[in-house]
């Protein structure tokens, strides 16, 4: 059985749903950031799979994957800085207890 585009897309969908489940249910803010990284990686897998199966000579999907990586790096740097700032102020990163701005 040869590997086709559908295999990569289904792998990407499974990885995305695992990341989504974790991001919705975890209470530790660092774990939530890790699950968001999982979801971004799933999107990158599907972009690269589309690039090499649908337009193999254009590489557009790989260029998009590079930009997704840039945004992911920026996001994780700022996100972890915010987590550290919250930890310094509240001594806690449990998202159930961070309700300072909750109405």
């Amino acid at each position, binding site marked *: 059985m*040869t*590997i086709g*585009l*559908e*295999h*990569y*897309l*289904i*792998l990407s*969908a499974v*990885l995305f*749903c*695992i*990341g*989504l*489940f*974790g991001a*919705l*249910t*975890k*209470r*530790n803010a*660092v*774990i939530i*950031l*890790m*699950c968001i*990284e*999982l979801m971004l*990686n799933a999107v*990158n*897998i599907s972009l*690269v*799979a589309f690039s*090499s*199966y*649908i337009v*193999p*000579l254009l*590489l557009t999907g*790989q*260029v998009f*994957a*590079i930009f997704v*990586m*840039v*945004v992911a*790096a*920026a996001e*994780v*740097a*700022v996100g*972890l*800085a*915010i*987590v*550290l700032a919250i*930890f310094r102020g509240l001594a*806690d*990163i449990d998202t159930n207890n961070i309700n300072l701005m909750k109405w």
Partner: protein
Amino acid sequence: MGLTVAFWIMAVVIIAAALAVVFLRNVFRAALALVLCFIAVAGIYLTLSADFLAAVQILVYVGAISVLIILAVMMTREVQQGSPHNKLEIPACIVAAVLLGLLIYSVTATPWRIAAESPLSPTTIPLAAKLFSEHGFILPVEIAATLLLAAILGAIVIAREKEK
């Protein structure tokens, strides 16, 4: 044949590592599972003949982002009581399962137009031509540089100790 075996190994490692990230109680072990998942994703890029992206994945994710995450785990260690779930576990499980079903249905039902050509093999030179040429992506590259600069400055300003 070898590509098929490599794909299945990488897929199993990715799914197992992602499940470990979500379900392990110890936050540090979850971070290590995340690193394993990143490495396996780089292997998936290699099976798709995206060699430059595999190298970038190792450098950026395994080298930089995982170090940042492990640093944050270490800095917030003393109050961590594992990584418990909140009350939304069952609705979130339903949402994720429904989304997975929809995605798998739409992927298998769509008639993809697979191109006949085999993908470019060393991708570094064509990618550079694509990114930096005049009719390519030079403006997004410049904007990405600005975004990275803003993110670095913002992270330093937010994470710095306030001097009394």
